[in-house]
């Protein structure tokens, strides 16, 4: 970094968005051609993140969760409508009954809201009877969806008596967009220099790397959108233990696996 010392302090300010004017313009020009300084900038942002991550405070109010899920459901309803007009929806949330049920319940709930809204726009007189019917349907759906999506709902996983917490991974995969979210809990600690590697097992061909992760002190880890080939159908997801840099192919036995339906 010696040759870049002149930019060292500006990089720290830029990492906090605190650099301005000519200094900022000069640094951005330099960053466009200097990978070493780009890496240092990313590192400094990570250093700044420690300040943010260590901020403690009250939890957000319960209503925030519902507000977010309502907004997400509303956007999904719009998307669902446009998809229904173009092609059959091939997406499948294949992991777990609860995950599927929650997804399905929210989508159905949101679609019903959209339906209700559209019906009202068509005219008050003719819509009144239909609205009453829709309201009854909505009430039914709310009763069904509430235990699944309500923030105050208790979520309990039942295991055999005297069984210690079991490692668990949940993968949420949208094939047509190559979107993958993976959440793991209770993962055992790893030997030094080792990491867990997630694999997408396609219906044909070799396993595809889907992210390397190291669980935190509580065994939790998250992978969001690892690079994946487009449109790959997943027969299963699996986890092996690999060197921490990851491996292009599995080199050790599968320690966890989950298949679709």
């Amino acid at each position, binding site marked *: 970094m010696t040759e870049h010392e002149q930019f060292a302090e500006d990089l720290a300010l830029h990492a906090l968005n*605190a650099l301005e004017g000519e200094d900022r313009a000069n640094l951005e020009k330099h960053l466009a051609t200097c990978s070493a300084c780009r890496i240092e900038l990313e590192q400094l942002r990570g250093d700044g993140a*420690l300040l943010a991550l260590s901020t403690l405070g009250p*939890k957000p109010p319960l209503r925030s969760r519902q507000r977010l899920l309502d907004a997400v*459901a509303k956007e999904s309803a719009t998307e669902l409508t446009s998809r229904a007009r173009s092609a059959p929806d091939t997406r499948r949330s294949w992991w777990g009954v609860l995950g599927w049920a929650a997804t399905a319940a929210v989508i159905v709930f949101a679609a019903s809201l959209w339906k209700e809204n559209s019906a009202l726009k068509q005219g008050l007189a003719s819509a009144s009877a239909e609205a009453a019917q829709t309201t009854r349907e909505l009430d039914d759906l709310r009763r069904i969806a509430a235990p699944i999506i309500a923030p105050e709902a208790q979520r309990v996983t039942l295991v055999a008596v005297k069984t210690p917490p079991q490692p668990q991974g949940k993968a949420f995969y949208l094939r047509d967009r190559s979107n993958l*979210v993976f959440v793991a809990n209770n993962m055992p600690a790893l030997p030094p220099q080792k990491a867990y590697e997630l694999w997408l097992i396609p219906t044909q061909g070799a396993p595809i790397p889907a992210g390397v992760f190291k669980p*935190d002190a509580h065994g939790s880890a998250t992978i969001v959108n690892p690079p994946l080939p487009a449109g790959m159908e997943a027969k299963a997801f699996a986890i092996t233990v690999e060197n921490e840099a990851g491996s292009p192919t599995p080199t050790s036995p599968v320690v966890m696996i989950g298949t679709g339906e």
Partner: protein
Amino acid sequence: MKSGDQSAMAELYDRYSSVVYAVALRVLGDTGAAEDVLQEVFLQLWRNPGAFDSARGSLGAWLAVITRNRAIDSLRRRRPETDIEDVILSVAPDLAVEADRSRAAEKVRGVLGTMPPRQRSALEMAYFEGMSHSEIATKTGEPLGTIKTRIRTGLIALRKAFQSSG
């Protein structure tokens, strides 16, 4: 782009909403405004999940930085200055679990406690109040170069503290 899986979003919210809300509240000092930033950050993740590159760092750290940036924009009543896809940071702890965050917070407070008060103040003014280096220099009456040095050495001190003990 609108994409995602709602139950996955609920999982991510349950895991990271405490971090996001705490950062927003620290910057804004107002629960309503912090709640708005919380919504905005998670909706951005929902609409554009590809903006986060898991190969480059932890989701918790990335969300914390995105939140801090959005909260500062809100505080200063300006349009968002940085696209979330441009926020790339190297690996930082995830700290999704409350107990881990408490330990990390204690460690950060320890590092800040060893800094000269003026250095700590400059770092906090830049990070949590979104002040530029020239604004800090004007407020404190100190040279620009001094402010730059204080902020950089402050960040490096945090890095070393976490590198040395993991």
